[in-house]
């Protein structure tokens, strides 16, 4: 319970800070909406509904990956500024609770963007779900968690590098490839109804479990690395 309370302490602090600045959500939302508009103009999805269904899963997740990366890059900025991270390191609280609180906060920020972006994407791409839409309720949170758990962890890793803005995508994108493949395939399966998404959802779930465990176990070492 002590650990859960500490996670909640970090999470509520991040939610409060984001509520006051709205930096991450506004940046992500503007970025993803722009991507949706540009892709819609480039592909003319209304004229080719079959193609639109086949590619929109990939476009949606690519947009979210790029947007999440911009937000994740800045997710530790508040801790880096004024050496707040050092003050946190001096406390006896579990370092992994700091990571989990931050990751859950980032998850909620990206999820909030998805809630707004989802309907816009369906509208712009004139999408009609031909598969079982209920699976989206599993694919979206699992896919989002896959992006943010690695992104939050690797953003700490790149904190002490000079070219942070470039470093995160350079490290995150290769690591995210299996998850990206699973989430795009699962989403496309639901949108087209041509195959079942369960296998890819299982892959995504396994990926989340493995990378969440690794991140929690390694976070303290990464945080204290010089």
């Amino acid at each position, binding site marked *: *319970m*002590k*650990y859960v*309370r*500490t996670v909640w*302490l970090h999470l509520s*602090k991040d939610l*409060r*800070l984001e509520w*006051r*600045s709205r930096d991450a959500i506004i940046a992500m939302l503007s970025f993803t909406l722009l991507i949706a508009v540009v892709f819609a103009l480039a592909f003319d999805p209304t004229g080719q509904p079959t193609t639109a269904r086949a590619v929109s899963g990939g476009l949606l997740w690519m947009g979210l990956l790029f947007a999440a990366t911009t937000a994740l890059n800045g997710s530790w900025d*508040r801790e880096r*500024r*004024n*050496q*707040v991270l*050092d*003050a*946190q*390191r*001096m*406390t*006896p*609280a*579990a370092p992994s609770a700091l990571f989990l609180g931050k990751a859950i906060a980032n998850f909620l920020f990206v999820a909030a963007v998805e809630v707004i972006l989802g309907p816009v994407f369906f509208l712009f791409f004139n999408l009609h779900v031909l598969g079982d839409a209920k699976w989206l309720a599993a694919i979206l949170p699992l896919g989002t968690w896959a992006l943010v758990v690695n992104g939050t962890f690797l953003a700490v890793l790149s904190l002490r590098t000079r070219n942070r803005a470039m470093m995160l995508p350079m490290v995150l994108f290769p690591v995210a490839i299996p998850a990206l493949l699973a989430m795009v395939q699962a989403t496309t399966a639901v949108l087209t109804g041509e195959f079942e998404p369960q296998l890819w959802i299982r892959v995504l779930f396994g990926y989340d479990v493995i990378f969440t465990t690794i991140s929690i176990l390694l976070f303290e070492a990464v945080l*204290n690395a*010089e």
Partner: protein
Amino acid sequence: MTTSTSTIAAETTGVSKLFGNFAALRQVTCSFAAGGLHVLLGENGAGKSTLVRVFAGLSGIDAGTVHVLGKSPRESQGRVAYMSHAPMLYEEMTAMENLQYFAALYSNGKDCGCSGSPEMALRSVGLDPHLTRPVSLYSQGMRQRVSLARVLMADPELLLLDEPFSNMDMDGARQMLDLLLDFRTWPSPGGARTIILTTHQAELVLPVADSVLRLHRGKVVSEAAA
């Protein structure tokens, strides 16, 4: 200097610290008696801040041994507090919110071992706990006071201060010094309370210091009782 472990708050033996090719500390051997106010002096780049960060457990070492309160710096976490010239506070939160957050982290889900509440800590440094504006709108001196309140609230046995008077006028610095002297008289479960601080304002601190350690280019050039 030969003293039993229980009377020594912090000590190093042959400690070296490298940043790339630059040696910030070279074979530093020193010890600081428990219950004293110890001052580290030296020019910029002499290694004062690095030595304080080593005691805080925020910087690792490349050679030698470090003991803080009879243990390794990491094992002493929670009994040591560190204040740097950066405020180590979240700028978007008020002073009270910052202190409540850190008080919860120090209590780590247990009954708080803090000697005072965040409100008491803020009053002790001469600030109004009901100020509603965020820390970003405080003057440098006010931020420094909040930062001091943060470390005093942690009820540490060893207080490490890196340039605590750097952003303060002379009156403010004297008030802070009086508060530090008062802090040493607070009852402590671990026995004596010790302060190690770095400063360029030697004339302010030397009259009340118990010992002075001078560093030059990462080496100890003199260690003496004041």
